[in-house]
């Protein structure tokens, strides 16, 4: 079902944990749909993501996309982090099954939510960042259904 990369990130997730007094924290998803992701960002004064951690309740793909998303944004400026799309996460994982594409969207949203929190805390506006949707599941790709 999952690619080797997904399985690797699921079995050995990078950056699991919390950051105390994080610069920004974002939580997305809901228990009803079976996945919740929380991203903690530690952003330095140059708006570089110095550290990132995550916690995820969800399926294998949810864990793996969280892990990969944290890897992709780590060390980046907040503006570059904003450009990390769900497609980038999926590609970095060598793909996801169609039913699991929503996990990658969730990961993207979790990063955005954490950045939004950072922006709000600091009273700044990040160009191109919109307020995260509370429930991203609407965008879900549906398997062909009969």
């Amino acid at each position, binding site marked *: 079902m999952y690619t080797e990369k997904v399985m690797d990130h699921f079995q050995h997730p990078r950056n699991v944990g919390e950051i105390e007094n994080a610069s920004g924290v974002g939580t997305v998803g809901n228990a009803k749909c079976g996945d919740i992701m929380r991203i903690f960002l530690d952003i330095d004064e140059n708006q570089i993501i110095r550290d990132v951690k995550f916690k995820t309740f969800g399926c*294998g793909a949810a864990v793996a996309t969280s892990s990969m998303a944290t890897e992709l944004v780590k060390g980046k400026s907040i503006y570059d982090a904003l450009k990390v799309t769900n497609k980038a996460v999926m590609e970095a994982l060598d793909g996801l099954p169609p039913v699991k594409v929503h996990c990658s969207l969730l990961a993207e949203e979790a990063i955005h939510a954490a950045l939004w929190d950072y922006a709000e805390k600091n009273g700044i506006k990040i160009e191109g960042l919109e307020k995260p949707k509370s429930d991203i599941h609407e965008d879900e790709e549906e398997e062909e259904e009969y």
Partner: protein
Amino acid sequence: MDKFLYLDNAATTKTAPEVVEAMIPYFTENYGNPSSVYSFAAKNKDAVNRQREIIAGALGAAPNEIYFTAGGTEADNWALKATAEAYGNKGRHIITTKIEHHAILHSAQYLERQGFEVTYLDVDENGKVRPEDVEAAIRPDTILISVMYANNEIGTIEPIQEIGKIAHEKGILFHTDAVQAFGQIPINVDECHIDMLSASGHKLNGPKGIGFLYIRKGVKIRSFIHGGAQERRRRAGTENVPGIVGLGKAVERAVRTMEERTKKERELRDYLIGRVLEEIPYTRLNGDREQRLPNNANFSFRFIEGESLLIMLDMKGICGSSGSACTSGSLDPSHVLLAIGLPHEIAHGSLRLTLNEEFEKEDMDYVVETLKEIVKNLRSMSPLYEDFMKKQNR
């Protein structure tokens, strides 16, 4: 992989070697079409009818009340749709439950689209249908009551005899999906007033792709699959002779081994349940503690999600399931767990382990130790657990 523990015997079972052995000659030697005139093939008709006798014997039924199908799903579809068709001008109301297998639920929903009305009964927190609810749901236009014999996810055995009695007294046809129960617990169609019963071969160490529908003599449903005159004109299609022979053998075997097998399974299962509930916090057992299939354990581990749990167990050589196998890949939590009142996030974190008679105590110990570690690990990365702990510590 050093360890391999197949704990998903409710999804499917290993075909027993004696079953395969019984089937083999019907592929390359006795391959005749039972409907043919010549003696080479007529022998196969006899072989098919012998299996019918074995199966009927296991249910207290008559051989000509057993109709072979391609599995439990077809049997369920047949029972519901053909009853609706045959008795539709008598009434258009059907009673079933919220915890049926999708083979029943989706057939019922199909019938709703055809203009039938379906009542989906609630169950109690252990997954039991209340007979009084059945009685209360009956209307003058009720033509069928369909309640599963035992649930495939949480293992709860339903009060079939009481429900059958109610149906019988009101003159309403009674169908039961016994796909999980048949072969695990004794069933008698007369004592339980069952008019139709579905079963499937691969759940009782028989082959996949074969099952049957018991139809009580006098129940006037017609074919669901139309064509040739097989199965006394009620189910068309060249008979799956090897499959039927395998099913017969599996039933014979299940009846023969039932007592010893289920005794062993019950003991091991109870040991497993005991240790898990004791040693893993924030865990609950789903399904009735007593009225329960001998090989079924179903847990909910709070704060974690089932698929992750399954994959981690898989990496340790343990095959389990979360919700029913048929719906894996879907995003919905099990309708059965929701029906017994579990909130979504707890329903998501459920694990079904279904045993077979080959396990020993050491295997259960391995399962418990592995589970403890994985659950701890997954909780450590769960935002739900984090929130819960923070609240606790406040």
